[in-house]
């Protein structure tokens, strides 16, 4: 459903506030289905915000965005999908090491990756991925 909306209704993202509403629907969907995704996202937010220079904001298409200064480290949609920008080299390496790391759902030929957070282990891995991006961009 998420990928369908992104692919076919993505043009609606230019309407101000619609991304936030779409993300609110994702939140409601996760809670109705009894998933703990929102708790995992809260825990990731609490952890990553401790790092020097990190700020959070609403992603332009909805979701939680992590910033280092003016640069975006990545964002998490409320269905637990973490999107992050790394170098192509790191992306390749990560995808070879761990099958859970995928091409970005929209930009396959780029340094962007996508990773679904479904349980606590995924949550810890997401934090380590964000840490990797943090160290990478801090240089």
């Amino acid at each position, binding site marked *: 459903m998420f990928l369908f909306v992104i692919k076919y209704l993505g043009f609606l993202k230019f309407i*101000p506030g619609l991304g*936030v509403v779409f993300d*609110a629907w994702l939140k409601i969907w996760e809670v109705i289905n009894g998933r703990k995704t929102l708790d995992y996202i809260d825990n990731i937010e609490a952890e990553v915000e401790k790092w020097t220079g990190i700020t959070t904001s*609403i992603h332009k298409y909805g979701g939680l965005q992590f910033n280092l200064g003016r640069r975006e480290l990545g964002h998490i949609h409320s269905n637990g999908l973490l999107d992050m920008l790394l170098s192509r080299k790191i992306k390749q390496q990560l995808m070879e090491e761990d099958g859970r790391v995928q091409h970005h759902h929209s930009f396959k030929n780029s340094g962007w990756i996508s990773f679904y957070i479904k349980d606590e282990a995924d949550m810890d891995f997401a934090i380590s991925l964000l840490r990797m991006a943090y160290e990478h961009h801090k240089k």
Partner: protein
Amino acid sequence: MKKVLTPLFNGYLVSNLVGLLIIGLTKYLTAKTYDFLGGTYTLAEFLIVPFLMGIIAVWFWRHEPLPGSRLVSRAWYNSFIAIALSFGFLREGVICLVILSPLLWSFMLAGCYAGRYMFKRDNQTLNVSVVALLAIFFFVDVMSEHHYENMVADEMVVNAPVSTVWKNVVAYKRNTSPDKYWLFKIGMPSPVESTAEGYYLGAKRKCIFSNGYVFDEKITTYEENKNLIFDITNQPRDPEIMGHIDILRGQFLLKDNGNGTTTVTGNSWYRLYVFPAWYYGIWAKSITRNVHIRVMEHIKEISEAR
């Protein structure tokens, strides 16, 4: 008193009071000033107001940790309070509010999240800008004329000759079969009977609903065994959904299939008084479709009875 007026309570109370005040004032002022706006609920009232209510509620809750799951449940409670107040003060019907609730909840939650990040940043320029943008969008939308009409068509094959079906299409005896559509089951009136003063052009017709509602109709096209069109001349005004939709016209088209069966096509034209149409249109279509199905299944049953 301090124990009652906690930030949690104030968040619910003030956001709902502001929401109620905006809707009430908008209804009052527009009805007084602009006739064409009277009775219409706009996109801004259903989307901007709950969004703003979410922001206001979170302003009161900004000093406590607000994990996502808590915000989702609080947005739900706040939506429930808003629905109860709308029932009490705005005289809205229960089914109408059931239909509204998913929209209210999602926009309230979006407002809560937007508020959470706004107050976390504590940037007054940003906060004022967001509220000003919402206000501009609200006024522009409320002051604009809204008009939405649509038509729904459904088809059914009846295992009876066209002359038998025609007789039952113009008027049919009371339908006592149980409702199948979930909105009818929870109390929305469903069509049960149709009467006509005669089988001719200009005859008055009545469509009677399960709760006693009567739609007055007049036959405007009468082509025996082929085409029946009737305009709705008077329909009940009610706080339930029927106050927010006008059924304008109905039509039954009959086609003799040449094998003793008849294809019946039911068409209905309606006008909506609630917006956004992309949301309420889905409901209006579903309700109209189920009115068609109930009527056409009944026509099929009595036409096929030997």
